[in-house]
Structure formats: structure tokens, C-alpha cells
């Protein structure tokens, strides 16, 4: 799941030049530069020549003197088309500027005038949007009269409603952000909020739309002039030239087609540039990975002895055991590789652990420690370009590194995610969603699957399961959805439940219910549990054994009962000390871990925890310790120096 990968840290400004270097960007900006250069230079170079009347060469076809022929006064059509660029483009830009200005004023009115007046403006805009733009332009052209000014006003006013509507939608999208509320509390005025907070954050799409709108305005102008409502002789733009050429389109098609071609080129220039700018503003689409192709590719490979994929993936010095019958999950040297802009990163770097039948193993660590990726890798839920390698990865004695094991999920392996709302399809009934997998994987009939779903909902203590099965996810409370998620996992007969932060989004009392339910399921069917959590106290409460992860490695593997007093790794001890509990000494400051978690793409040499560790010495900074005897530390269990007052770091 690429969405769960660590986000790039510097996400500040859109990279405009980079996207303009794409084929689309190059074409768009190239054409636009050409059009603008023509608009600027053509009247200076050929303004006079285009006006020159030559009665000797009237209505001629293409020739060596006049490549596109001449009009009824013997004027050169190619030159006239080139010179007309300036008027056409200037008028289109003027109309766009008018539309954007009116659109901005109407679109931000709700913010400036307050909700009541804002609603009136919104209603007005909604009505105006319903009218076809060209119809509006035509009626405005009648009102404002024919001619250039009239057409600019007509097209500007006609384009304004759509722009206002877009602006309203974008503003509404940021209007309830906390930073606007914070600015209001700081006493910042409405206009200033609009200029400093709202417009910069909605500016991208507006710029894009204005660019594309300019292309549209150009076409509308050509249309109005063509109908005789726009530019009047002796001035001429492309629409006017097209109208002049139309009379003899069968005799000399070029006279009408050439200005038409110019309109197409200029329109393309604006629209393609707009598209390229649009891509620059959508930062999320940078990765460029096709998710559609992902499902078909296998992402798991066996790490062959010497060819370790990452610089840090040294095989752990552990004695080979035969997988006993009581072993549910056996993982050795699990490595997750993520391609980044600056080369590969290894958010999981050689994780080795085993889970016995009925055992509950907790995985704790800060965000970015690799705990979630470890869980997803085990469940085979990582998609390319993320790749998973391991020296050994077996589930119930079966090798997961070869062959397809997609059906494991839903039968023998259950997964519970953090946010139960996004794990269910909001428009399908719960019963059907539970039954679906069972029909697919277990070969049950519709009736059997439905009965099993109801039975499973009952087993996760959801009251009135028959009625609940017919409800939609939003009709369930957060805790009930999470229990239903566990029920979904129990549709088969799982040997292992992988739960990734299953209670983080829940209230404490609901968290208690979910944790109790997991414990009950474990006991009833001897199901093993792999519980991922950032909360040390939750893990200590539920699990038999705890793996503490830091920077993609297991730094300590210890019984949960020993977390409080028997932890030897300084990181584990700091993590335990940092959590306030109902017995924390109130007269002393809370223990803090100085510094910040490491970036998997930029690991320091030596032990990754060394920069934050009070015990770190020269060896810690140069040599990374292996997990030996349950702890990966050069100075395990040594006394920590007295707490230093916290400094400006964390």
C-alpha cells in the first residue's frame, strides 16, 4: 500500500519547472511562447504590409508572393492572420481577466460578507451557472452592443459564473480548516485572512482554470467575431478573417482555414499549458506508479544469501531451527525496500521474529519505525514499487515466498486496520461485506455465508446480529465497526490475527472492549495475535512478548511483563518512561526522548538510536549492533545518567 509509506519530509512548494519539462509541458509552453511572440512582434514587423491594398492581386489563391492568397482588397492573408494574433490574444486575455476578477469577488463573497449575504451570492451564482455560456455571451453582446468592448464585457461576464462557482468550492474546502479559525482568534481581519491564508492555498487550481479559461475565451471571441458581433472592420481578428474567408470557402478554402488553424494552435497553447500547470499543483501524483499493474506482479522475493538487497540487511546470526508444529509465523531477515527520488530506502531492514500458536506478540515503536510495514509485509499487502524480501517467511509451515497465497487473507490470516470506517465499503451492507470473502474463499453458498456472517457478528458481541447485518457501516459506532472487522477476520478460521493500531482511533472504554474481545478470541480458538501499536501500555496489557522497533529493526525482544522493569535497551526504557500513567510522579517532569526519529532514507552510521541515546559512545556511532540475546545494543542494561533537563530538540 504505497499510501502508508513514509511521506517525504519536504513537501513545501510545487515543483513547477519539473513538470513543465515533461512532453506535455514543453509542447504547451513552446506553443504559448510562439503565440505570444507572434502577438508581440507580428504587428511591428508586418503591420503595414498586412494593410497594404493591392488592387492588382485581389482574391488570389496561394502563390509565391502570397503563400495563403489574398482577400478582396488584395491584402496578404498569411500576414493578416499573423498580425491578427495580437488583437485576438489581447481581447481573450482581457475577457479572462474580467471573468477571473468577477469570479473571485463572487466566489469569496461568503468569506468577506459573512454567511447570510454569502448564501445569497451563492444562490445567484448557482442560477447564473445554469445558463449556457455562449447564450449568455450572445445576450450580453446584444446588451453591450457590437464591437470590441461589448464582446470583452459579454465574454467576461459569461465566463464569470463558472469561475465564481469553482472559487466558492475551493474556498469552502479551506474555510473550516483550523488555521483559519486560529487566524480569526489571533484577530486577523477578514480581508487579510482571504489574502494571506485562503488565496495562497486555493491559488493553484484557480491559476490552472484561468489558463484554460483563456483558451475558451479565445474560441468564444472567434465565434462572436465570426457571427459579426465582435470585432468590426477595419480592425480584424481571427474570427473576422474567418467570416471574410467563408464566402469563398469552396473556391479558396485556405482563406477561412488559416485563421481557423491559428485559433486551434492558440487554444491548444493555453489549454496544454494549463494542463501542465495543473499537474505541477497536484503534488500527490508525483510517484507516477501505475497501481493497476500492481496486483499482477509478485512483490515478494527470497533474499539469496550473498545478494542482500540493502546495505544493512546482514543475515542475523541465529541458529536454524526446524519450524515446529506450534509455529504460526516464522520471519527471518525481512526487508522492505521503497524506491525514492534519491534511490532506494529501507524502512524495514532485516526483521526476524517468530509467533507461536496462540501467542500474542506486540510490536511497538514511534511513527516511521517500520512496524506497520512489517505487518503489511507479513500479510502480503504491499504493492509495487515497494518490494519485500526475506531469508525465510513461512506461515503455518508453508513457504510464503513462493507461489500465490492471496487466499490466506480471509481464511487463515486476519487483518484488522486502524480506521474501521475506511476498511468497509460505505455503500454496502455489513452482512454482505462479511459474506463476500467467505463465498469466494470457502466456497459457501449465499445462504450459508449469510448465516455465518450473522453468527460471526454475534461472536464479536454485536447485539441483534440479524438486524445489524442488514445495516450500512455508517450505522455502526466506531467500536462496533472495529468488532465487525474482527468478525470479518473470523469468517474463516484464522491462525493469526494481524492488528495494526486497532484501538488508536477509539475511546478508552471502547478500546477496552476491543482489546478484551481480541483476548477472548485468542483464548477460544488459540489464535495468535500480532499487535502493532505506538502505545506501550496497550501492548503490555495484551501481549505475551514485545518487539521494540526502531529505524526498521527490532532493537529489543522481551517478555511483556518485563517491559516496566526488565528492559535493557535505552530506547525501550525511554519509551516506557515517556508514557504518563496513573501512578506517574507529579513533582517531576516527564521523561522525554531528545531529538527526533530517524528518516529511513537517511540513516546515520552506527546504531541509529545513538544520536538520541544518553549512553552512546564512539563504538555506538560507528558500528550497528545486532540483535543478540534479545537486545541490539552495545551497552544493554547499563545505568542511564540522571535525567537531563529537556532542551530545544524534540
Amino acid at each position, binding site marked *: 500500500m504505497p499510501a502508508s509509506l513514509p511521506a517525504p*519530509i*519536504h513537501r*513545501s512548494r510545487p515543483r513547477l519547472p519539473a513538470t513543465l519539462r515533461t512532453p506535455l509541458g514543453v509542447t504547451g509552453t513552446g506553443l504559448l511562447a510562439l503565440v505570444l511572440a507572434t502577438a508581440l512582434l507580428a504587428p511591428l514587423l508586418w503591420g503595414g504590409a498586412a494593410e497594404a491594398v493591392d488592387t492588382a492581386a485581389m482574391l488570389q489563391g496561394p502563390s509565391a508572393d502570397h503563400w495563403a492568397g489574398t482577400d478582396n482588397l488584395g491584402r496578404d492573408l498569411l500576414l493578416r492572420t499573423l498580425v491578427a494574433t495580437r488583437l485576438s490574444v489581447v481581447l481573450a486575455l482581457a475577457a479572462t481577466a474580467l471573468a477571473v476578477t468577477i469570479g473571485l469577488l463572487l466566489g469569496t463573497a461568503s468569506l468577506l460578507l459573512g454567511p447570510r449575504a454569502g448564501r445569497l451570492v451563492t444562490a445567484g451564482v448557482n442560477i447564473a451557472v445554469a445558463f449556457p455560456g455562449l447564450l449568455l455571451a450572445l445576450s450580453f453582446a446584444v446588451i453591450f452592443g457590437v464591437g470590441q468592448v461589448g464582446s470583452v464585457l459579454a465574454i467576461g461576464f459569461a465566463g464569470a459564473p463558472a469561475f465564481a462557482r469553482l472559487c466558492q468550492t475551493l474556498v469552502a474546502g479551506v474555510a473550516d*480548516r*483550523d*488555521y483559519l*479559525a*486560529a*487566524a*480569526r*482568534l*489571533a*484577530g*486577523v*481581519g477578514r480581508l487579510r485572512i482571504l489574502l*494571506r*491564508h485562503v488565496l*495562497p*492555498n486555493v491559488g493553484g487550481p484557480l491559476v490552472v482554470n484561468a489558463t484554460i479559461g483563456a483558451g475558451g475565451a479565445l474560441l468564444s471571441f472567434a465565434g462572436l467575431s465570426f457571427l459579426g458581433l465582435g470585432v468590426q472592420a477595419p480592425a480584424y481578428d481571427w474570427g473576422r478573417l474567418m467570416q471574410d474567408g467563408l464566402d469563398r470557402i469552396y473556391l479558396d478554402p485556405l482563406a477561412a482555414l488559416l485563421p481557423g488553424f491559428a485559433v486551434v494552435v492558440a487554444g491548444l497553447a493555453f489549454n496544454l499549458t494549463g494542463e501542465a500547470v495543473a499537474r505541477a499543483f497536484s503534488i500527490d501524483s508525483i510517484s507516477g506508479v501505475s497501481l493497476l499493474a500492481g496486483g499482477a506482479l509478485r512483490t515478494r522475493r527470497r533474499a539469496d544469501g550473498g545478494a542482500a538487497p540493502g546495505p544493512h540487511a546482514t543475515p542475523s546470526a541465529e541458529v536454524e531451527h526446524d519450524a515446529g508444529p506450534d509455529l504460526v509465523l516464522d520471519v527471518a531477515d525481512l526487508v522492505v525496500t521503497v524506491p525514492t527520488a534519491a534511490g532506494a530506502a529501507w524502512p524495514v531492514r532485516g526483521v526476524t521474529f517468530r509467533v507461536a500458536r496462540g501467542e500474542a506478540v506486540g510490536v511497538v515503536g*514511534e*511513527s516511521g519505525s517500520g512496524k506497520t510495514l512489517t505487518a503489511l509485509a507479513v500479510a502480503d499487502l504491499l504493492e509495487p514499487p515497494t518490494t519485500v524480501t526475506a531469508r525465510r517467511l513461512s506461515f503455518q509451515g508453508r513457504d510464503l515466498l513462493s507461489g500465490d497465497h492471496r487466499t490466506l487473507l480471509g481464511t487463515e490470516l486476519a487483518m484488522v486496520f486502524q480506521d474501521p470506517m475506511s476498511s468497509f465499503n460505505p455503500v454496502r451492507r455489513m452482512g454482505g461485506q462479511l459474506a463476500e470473502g467467505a463465498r469466494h474463499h470457502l466456497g459457501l453458498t449465499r445462504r450459508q455465508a449469510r448465516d455465518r456472517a450473522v453468527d460471526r457478528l454475534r461472536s464479536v458481541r454485536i447485539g441483534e446480529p440479524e438486524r445489524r447485518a442488514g445495516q450500512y457501516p455508517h450505522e455502526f459506532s466506531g467500536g462496533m465497526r472495529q468488532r465487525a472487522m474482527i468478525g470479518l477476520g473470523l469468517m474463516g478460521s484464522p491462525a493469526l490475527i494481524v492488528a495494526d493500531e486497532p484501538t488508536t482511533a477509539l*475511546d*478508552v*472504554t471502547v*478500546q*477496552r472492549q476491543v*482489546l478484551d474481545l481480541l483476548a477472548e478470541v485468542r483464548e477460544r480458538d488459540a489464535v495468535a495475535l500480532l499487535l502493532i501499536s*505506538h*502505545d*506501550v*501500555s*496497550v501492548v*503490555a*496489557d495484551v501481549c505475551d512478548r514485545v518487539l521494540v522497533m526502531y529505524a526498521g529493526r527490532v532493537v529489543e525482544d522481551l517478555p511483556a511483563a518485563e*517491559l*516496566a*522493569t526488565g528492559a535493557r535497551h535505552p530506547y525501550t526504557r525511554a*519509551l*516506557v518512561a*515517556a*508514557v*504518563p*500513567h*496513573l*501512578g*506517574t*510522579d*507529579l*513533582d517531576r*517532569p*516527564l*521523561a*522525554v*526522548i531528545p531529538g*527526533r*526519529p530517524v528518516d529511513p532514507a537517511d540513516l546515520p552510521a552506527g546504531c541509529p538510536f545513538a544520536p538520541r541515546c544518553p549512553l552512546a559512545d564512539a563504538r555506538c556511532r560507528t558500528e550497528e549492533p545486532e540483535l543478540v540475546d534479545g537486545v541490539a545494543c552495545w551497552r544493554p542494561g547499563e545505568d542511564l545518567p540522571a535525567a537531563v533537563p*529537556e532542551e*530545544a*530538540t*524534540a
Partner: protein
Amino acid sequence: MSELRFDDVTVRYGAGRRTTTAVDGVSLVVPPGEIVGLVGESGSGKSTLARAAVGLAPVHGGQVLLDGEPVGGRRRTAGPSPVQLVFQDPASSLDPRMTVGESVAEAVPRERGRTSAAARASARAEVERLLTLVHLDPDRAGAYPGQLSGGQRQRVAIARALAARPSVVVADEITSALDVSIQGAVLNLVRELQRDLGLSILFISHDLAVVRYVATRVAVLHRGRIVERGETAQVLGDPRHDYTRSLLAAVPSPLTGPLTGGTIDSTRTTRRPT
């Protein structure tokens, strides 16, 4: 030092038959210079009460008083609100396109009758002072929120709230979006600010252990009503309402040592203004 008082405050959302009462006749006092904890589950009305305190939620009954004067409402005078709110998620409470220095400077009250250059210099000095106060390097003023860690961002949000020279700060779940390793530092900062600046703070959290650590008094909110209140040690050590008991029972057992009455009965004295 100021006192924040909720006097029979009711907040409703929606109209007609769909009206929901988020806060139902809540009376609560945050005494001068004290931290009062407000605990409750999601949907209990905690955040609504926080927003009502600063005028971001419509108050339908009762009023919010700061030293006896109503706060919030439509006819608030210009300038920063005397009650400042620190939001839950610093990722959304800081404008991603403004540097943290600009965000903090925005809340610094402008002084009248000074040239713009002098005003700018004094604003810059004030931003530096505030960033130092929350233990951030003043040199980070030019950084964008996206370049800071979650804990650093939350410190910036606190600095911005302090920039407005508030009488009272409302902290709405300010550590729940943070990693545990960072949470401790932010909690230490909250206690330090209360101690050093004499701030009155309404500290909202769903985490009883966190509230116990920072607050001298606590109120328990359940379905929009306060069901229990009192000294923190007394409420958590000897809860009288069933709901408070169920909240306490749900807390995972502490990691270090058994929970005894002795550790709960805090020796920390309630600080009163002198």
C-alpha cells in the same frame, strides 16, 4: 491572571427535528492560574465546549465569561481574542504556505503609533522570544510547517496562542496527534507555562493519565453534561460517578508498579493566586 467561567452553556447544532445538543447546560470554572482538565469520550462535547469558549461555536443558552465579561460573540472588538485555542492537530492548524515565524507574528498584537520598520523589528523580536519560550530554536522561524516534526509544530501552535497575550488558553487534545516520545515534552511545556506565566488553562483530553499529570482540577463530560468534578487526585482516586469509574477501569494498567492509593493522592498543592 484571569478566570474563565462557563455559565449554564448550551450549544446546539442543526435546526428543527435534526437538532442535536452537543453541550447541555455546562457550568465550569477555570480559576486564575490553574489548569483544569476536561475528560470525556469522543462525542461527549469536549471540543464543542472548547470552540464555544472562543466564539467558534454558537452558544444557544448561558454564556462564557472572562473575569465576569462575556467573551466571543459577534461584536468582539478588533485584535486578538483574550481566550486562545490550541488545536488538536498542528498539521491542520498551521497554514502550510506560511513560515512558522509568519504564523506566530500574525498573532502578535500590533502596536499603534510606531513606524513600520520599528514595528517589524519588535514583532521579530517577539517571535524570537516566543519560539525560545516553547523551546524552539528561533532560527527555525523561516521554516515551513512541513519541515518540522509533529512535536515542533505543536510548539509553534502553542507559541502562536501565546503571542496573542491571552488571559486563558484552551488546549483541545493537543497531544493526541503526537507520538508518545514527543507527548511528554509538550506536557512538560504546558506545566512550565502555567507555572512561569501564571496562565489559566482549560486542558481537554481523553487520556486520564495525561490529565492527571497536568491538571489540578478535573471535570468529566458525558453526553454534553458534566457528571463529576473536583480535585484531580480526589476524582481519579475516589470516583463517585459510574461513568468516571468505567473510564478509569478502561485505562490499561500502569507499566511501573501496582496502582496504589498513595501514588494517586498527590502531594502537589493547588496553586492559588496571591
